[in-house]
């Protein structure tokens, strides 16, 4: 092989070639030392290029080192993607026609034509993945073999260094991408972890029976913000965190209704001034509002998740409470019905205990009847409950034959209670009170007495005042007579002609006589009670005298007529009952 022969004889087919310098004639020692010094310098340049991960830095180092290694220079670098990087101080644009020449050379390299350059050669830049491009060197005359070998080595080292730098850049990009992915993943994990914490904390509250205060407390702990829970009317039911307003502000009814309508349409938390609010409504008739007090508007997405989850737990709690209330209400209603209809003591006492109601005390039945606006059963029931609560009386309540029946152990001013109900509802309210029942099984009797009192009150007694059966005196005695035949005969004996007249003419002479006698013969009071003019009353009394032939001022007649009218009223009441 000659000195210019290649180490790889397959150079002709484009395979990588390392050209060795021609063996020189024995050089003078200074020249040899200089050549060896250049190799040392080349070694250092190679080390520096290998150490660098900056492609531009590598290319510049190679180009700028050329003048120190010989009289040649690096014109620039042509890369396989068509890019041209000029050598130090050269024109940024690639010399005309050079890109095409480099493409044709392929990985072998070789001479190229450069305008104004007697000698120009392209040396392949090879990297790990193959050909990266070419280093284009030029000189005013063909450099000696030793110099050409240096250029070849510089090209080889530059190729390796650039390849490494690109690999490193890719690795850095991959690492950065991985880091970004990891960061995103970590954020997702953090978000999920917080969601799980929220879920676990609120689920714990839901199952632990901590109720609405527990829900508010948990949400406050999760968000760090004060939390309020309100009922549908805006009343505060629970608060957690600092700054609880006292008194708690309450919106007007109209504004509250507007807010609730807005919340019903919303699917996510809604801002209402300084608060983020959400509706908890397990059914249309059950509502609660969960509010996060956030004047600084710093609630993040996790806080909103916590609020939404809190609203779900609150809805469950409200549904549970309403379910319990409904069940208790049903049980109470069933018990009241059974007590009024008649049940055994043992069963009644047990069921009362289950409802935390003591039936061992003597109870009585009170019947409340409403007329006009007070006739609505539910409204009347609620009004009676309120009045009893105000009178500090407990009891069992239920609607009964269009009226409200109260079973109570209390003894209060029943007239005052009646007035309270009437004041609450308006309209007309009557009230009948039965006698005390020592045992639950006696309550049907008390009910009958209460009903009787109510009817007697309507028939015989003046006004709408409450009527207590135990205070009815003669009425009570008459009602207690098992066989009413003699009573009926007595009534017919004294009032028969008037009863017949009333039946025939649809008149009210018996009722007029009754009120006249009950008011002690006072014309004014009787006329007022009957809502008629005094002359009308006098005319009716004259007709009574004519029909009966009796003198009403006769004490004996007066007594018998009063007894007869009371017996008539009692019979009427008893017949209505039957």
């Amino acid at each position: 092989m000659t000195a210019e022969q290649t180490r790889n004889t397959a150079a002709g087919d484009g395979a990588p070639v390392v050209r060795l310098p021609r063996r020189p004639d024995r050089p003078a020692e200074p020249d040899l030392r200089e050549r060896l010094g250049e190799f040392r310098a080349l070694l250092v340049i190679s080390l520096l290029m290998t150490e660098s991960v900056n492609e531009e830095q590598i290319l510049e180092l190679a180009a700028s080192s050329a003048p120190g290694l010989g009289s040649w220079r690096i014109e620039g670098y042509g890369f396989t993607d068509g890019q041209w990087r000029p050598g130090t101080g050269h024109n940024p644009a690639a010399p005309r026609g050079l890109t095409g020449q480099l493409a044709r050379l392929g990985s072998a390299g070789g001479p190229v034509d450069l305008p104004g350059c007697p000698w120009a050669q392209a040396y392949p830049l090879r990297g790990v993945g193959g050909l990266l491009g070419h280093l284009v060197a030029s000189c005013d005359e063909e450099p000696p073999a030793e110099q050409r070998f240096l250029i070849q080595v510089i090209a080889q080292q530059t190729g390796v260094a650039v390849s490494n730098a690109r690999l490193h850049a890719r690795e850095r990009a991959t690492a950065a991408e991985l880091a970004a992915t990891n960061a995103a993943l970590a954020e997702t994990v953090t978000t999920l972890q917080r969601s799980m914490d929220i879920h676990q904390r609120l689920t714990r509250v839901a199952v632990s029976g901590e109720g609405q205060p527990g829900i508010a407390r948990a949400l406050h702990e999760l968000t760090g913000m004060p939390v309020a829970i309100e009922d549908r009317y805006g009343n505060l039911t629970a608060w957690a965190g600092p700054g609880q307003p006292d008194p708690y502000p309450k919106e007007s009814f109209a504004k509250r209704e507007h807010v609730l309508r807005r919340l019903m349409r919303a699917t996510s938390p809604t801002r209402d001034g300084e608060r983020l609010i959400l509706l908890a409504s397990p059914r249309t008739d059950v509502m609660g509002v969960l509010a996060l007090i956030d004047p600084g508007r710093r609630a993040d997405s996790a806080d909103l998740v916590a609020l939404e989850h809190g609203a779900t737990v609150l809805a469950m709690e409200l549904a549970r409470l309403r379910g319990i209330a409904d069940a208790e209400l049903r049980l109470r209603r069933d018990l009241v019905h059974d007590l009024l209809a008649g049940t055994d003591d043992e069963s009644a006492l047990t069921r009362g205990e289950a409802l935390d109601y003591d039936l061992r005390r003597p109870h009585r039945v009170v019947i409340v009847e409403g007329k006009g606006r007070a006739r609505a059963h539910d409204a009347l029931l609620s009004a009676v409950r309120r009045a009893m609560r105000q009178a500090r009386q407990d009891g069992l309540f239920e609607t009964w034959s269009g009226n409200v029946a109260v079973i109570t152990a209390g003894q209060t001013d029943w007239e005052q209670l009646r007035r309270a109900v009437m004041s609450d509802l308006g309209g007309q309210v009557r009230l009948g009170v039965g006698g005390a029942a020592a045992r639950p099984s006696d309550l049907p009797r008390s009910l009958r007495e209460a009903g009787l009192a109510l009817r007697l009150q309507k028939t015989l007694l003046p006004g709408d005042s409450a009527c207590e059966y135990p205070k009815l005196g003669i009425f009570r005695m008459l009602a207690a007579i098992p066989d009413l035949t003699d009573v009926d005969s007595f009534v017919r004996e004294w009032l028969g002609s008037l009863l017949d007249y009333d039946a025939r003419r649809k008149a009210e002479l018996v009722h007029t006589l009754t009120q006249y006698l009950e008011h002690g013969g006072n014309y004014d009071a009787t006329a007022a009670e009957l809502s008629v003019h005094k002359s009308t009353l006098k005319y009716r009394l004259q007709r009574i005298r004519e029909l009966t032939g009796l003198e009403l001022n006769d004490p004996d007649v007066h007594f018998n007529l009063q007894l007869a009218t009371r017996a008539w009223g009692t019979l009427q009441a008893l017949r209505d009952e039957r």
Partner: protein
Amino acid sequence: MTGLVPSGIDEIGLQPGSHVCAFYRGDTDRDRLLSGYLGAGLTAGDKCICVVDSANTAERLESMPGACGEPGPYTGQLDIHLPESTYLAGGEFTTSDMLTFWTEGMVKAEVEGYSFCRLVGEMTWALRDAPGVEHLVGYESELNRVTARYPVVVLCLYDLDRFSGEVVVNIVKTHPQVLIQGILVENPYYLGPDEFLRSARPVPASPRSASA
């Protein structure tokens, strides 16, 4: 003194009389080399003379343990100088003046009782547009002649981010030892001052980006 002297850098030992060219990248790397090299010298009781290219660097070196006296010639164990009073004294670089500066420093140290000297120069001053800086490589070659006669080690610091490849090549060719990436590269074929000055042309130590 015979045997190797600890350089204080990457556990590298140096022969007395060594003139080492150290390449680094950036201020952090420079400070690591300076503090290691001077720290070892101060610990060993060597006279340390350094020329740094900024007042900030000088101030940091003053706080080194063992340093004493204010920056200036012949004050304490560690003398710290700036280029304006050394390499570029009088506004231009003169090889002979600088060699005289080092020589006088070493003689003075010997008089003061120091048995060994440790010299260091931060060479970025040569990137300034000042008369005479093109003689940098020749100066480095001449310095070999001086260091061979004294109990001394010399470290010349070159910032690779700022010096061109040509300067690097010529510095390697004229230095018997080059410190790079923690490796001490020996160059037994370095050109002595006479050989270099006979063959070489002046090399402007221009920055990399402008070194044409």
